[in-house]
């Protein structure tokens, strides 16, 4: 991942301590005056060897391990892993469990997008928006805590189902919280597409065309903000997404503003989905029996994390421990675009371009 358009004049290292975000990554930008002419990235500062460790732990222990790949999208990791293991075992979780998985996936997307909105607003120098969006995010964090007992690492999934149920009381609290968030999201949507000083930082900056997006292999909202209509929830529905299909939110403009608009519109779509799931939550069991040893074989499990396609490859040899669990996280796909898009921009735009892909270093290092 390296771009060099002309001979290096001066190199500015950013990171590994907290390059814009509160996670470690190391970037080197070669600059000509204020203009970036080349960039390289080094990762691995948060590498914990989870894939190696997974080979030593049994299938159940690994749920908790992979949930800890990421503190923001922990539930999507556990969902991808559990769906994969269930497929290997030939077990299908009951409909109510699948719907609750989907519900938590969407609540997690809401908290992740609001978190991102705050971080990116901060990088754009718009700290008021940062403070407000994080205050509002507490609403969904409280709902997640009420539903699962935890603010992060909710531990909703077990092999063969889920361990939390949605009571009428919690459902009412979620409806109420979503009404508040929906109103706020409409307001933020208006702010990011009308505030003059914000638009100077976002409109026409970091433009990625659809063709570039496809060549660089970016995924998720970053790709959808460049007009790529790809969403795993629709292309390969998992859990209960076949019964509760979302609308794909696409924007053709490809700049930072489009990335804000796409994620905010996805929030509105998530609110709709959560309400729909609560209204039509199937009745029945929460778990089915899972064997301790998983039949030998290989499978691929793909889910749409808040940042894009999350890809799990699982291989079993018929014992109670996996042979290989490979997690390819969305950030590693999107990181290539940062080093390419930075070229030609002001150095001061780089933090926002980096934040624009919603990077998660903990995810891509594993």
């Amino acid at each position, binding site marked *: 991942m390296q771009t060099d358009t002309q001979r290096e004049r001066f190199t500015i290292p950013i990171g590994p301590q907290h390059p814009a975000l509160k996670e470690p990554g190391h970037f080197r930008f070669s600059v000509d005056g204020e203009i970036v002419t080349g960039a390289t990235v080094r*990762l691995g500062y948060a590498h914990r060897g989870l894939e190696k460790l997974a080979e030593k732990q049994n299938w159940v222990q690994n749920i908790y391990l992979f949930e800890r790949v990421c503190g923001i999208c922990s539930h999507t990791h556990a969902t991808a892993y559990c769906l994969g293991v269930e497929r290997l075992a030939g077990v299908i979780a009951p409909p109510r469990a699948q719907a609750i998985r989907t519900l938590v996936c969407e609540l997690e997307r809401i908290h992740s997008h609001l978190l991102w909105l705050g971080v990116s607003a901060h990088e754009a120098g718009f700290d008021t928006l940062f403070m407000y969006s994080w205050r509002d995010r507490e609403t969904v964090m409280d709902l997640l805590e009420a539903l699962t007992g935890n603010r992060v690492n909710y531990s909703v999934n077990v092999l063969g189902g889920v361990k939390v149920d949605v009571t009428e009381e919690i459902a009412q609290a979620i409806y109420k919280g979503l009404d508040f968030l929906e109103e706020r999201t409409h307001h933020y949507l208006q702010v990011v597409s009308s505030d003059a000083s914000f638009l100077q930082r976002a409109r026409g900056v970091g433009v990625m065309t659809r063709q570039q997006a496809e060549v660089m292999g970016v995924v998720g909202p970053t790709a959808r903000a460049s007009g790529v209509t790809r969403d795993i929830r629709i292309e390969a529905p998992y859990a209960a997404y076949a019964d509760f299909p979302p609308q794909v939110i696409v924007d053709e403009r490809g700049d930072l503003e489009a990335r804000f608009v796409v994620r905010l519109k996805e929030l509105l779509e998530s609110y709709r989905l959560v309400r729909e799931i609560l209204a039509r939550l199937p009745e029945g069991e929460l778990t089915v029996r899972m064997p301790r040893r998983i039949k030998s074989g290989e499978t691929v499990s793909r889910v749409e994390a808040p940042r894009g396609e999350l890809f799990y490859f699982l291989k079993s040899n018929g014992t109670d421990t996996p042979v290989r669990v490979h997690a390819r996280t969305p950030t590693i796909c999107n990181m290539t675009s940062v080093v390419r898009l930075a070229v030609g921009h002001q150095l001061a735009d780089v933090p926002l371009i980096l934040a624009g892909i919603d990077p998660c270093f903990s995810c891509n290092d594993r």
Partner: protein
Amino acid sequence: MKTTEEILTLAREIAGAWDWTTEVTQPEPNRLDVLLRNPADLVAIVTALRVKRLGYLAAITGLDLGAGELEALYHFCAGEVVITLRVRLNGRETAVASLSELIPSAEPFERELREMYGVNIIGLPSPDYLYLPDDWPAGVYPMRQDFDPQVLSRKT
């Protein structure tokens, strides 16, 4: 948008072409497994997939099969279909050509494969580590089965 059936048929046609020898299996309804008899065919077969606009490279998985045998799995996704090209690398010396010229997004995946499994990838632009620290001992590959963490605490 092609349907799942169309994608599978097209992928089977490409995998079964005269130009290369492959072993095609369908382990799951949405997955096609293509074992390449000759690793040198990889670039040509990926080019054929690209020409037909069949999927995008979603991931490259490394596997240590034991007894000095490594395997690289190139997963291409199209809709719900996952086409996996398997390249088996016998012995520690075997190399495989880089796809990064054809598919720029392959670069981070290939660098991970090189660092973690020691697969020699020919034509990869950057010689640096992506994940491992600069002082990582040469010839030690953490995802191989025979990896011994003790080597890291030994001072050389």
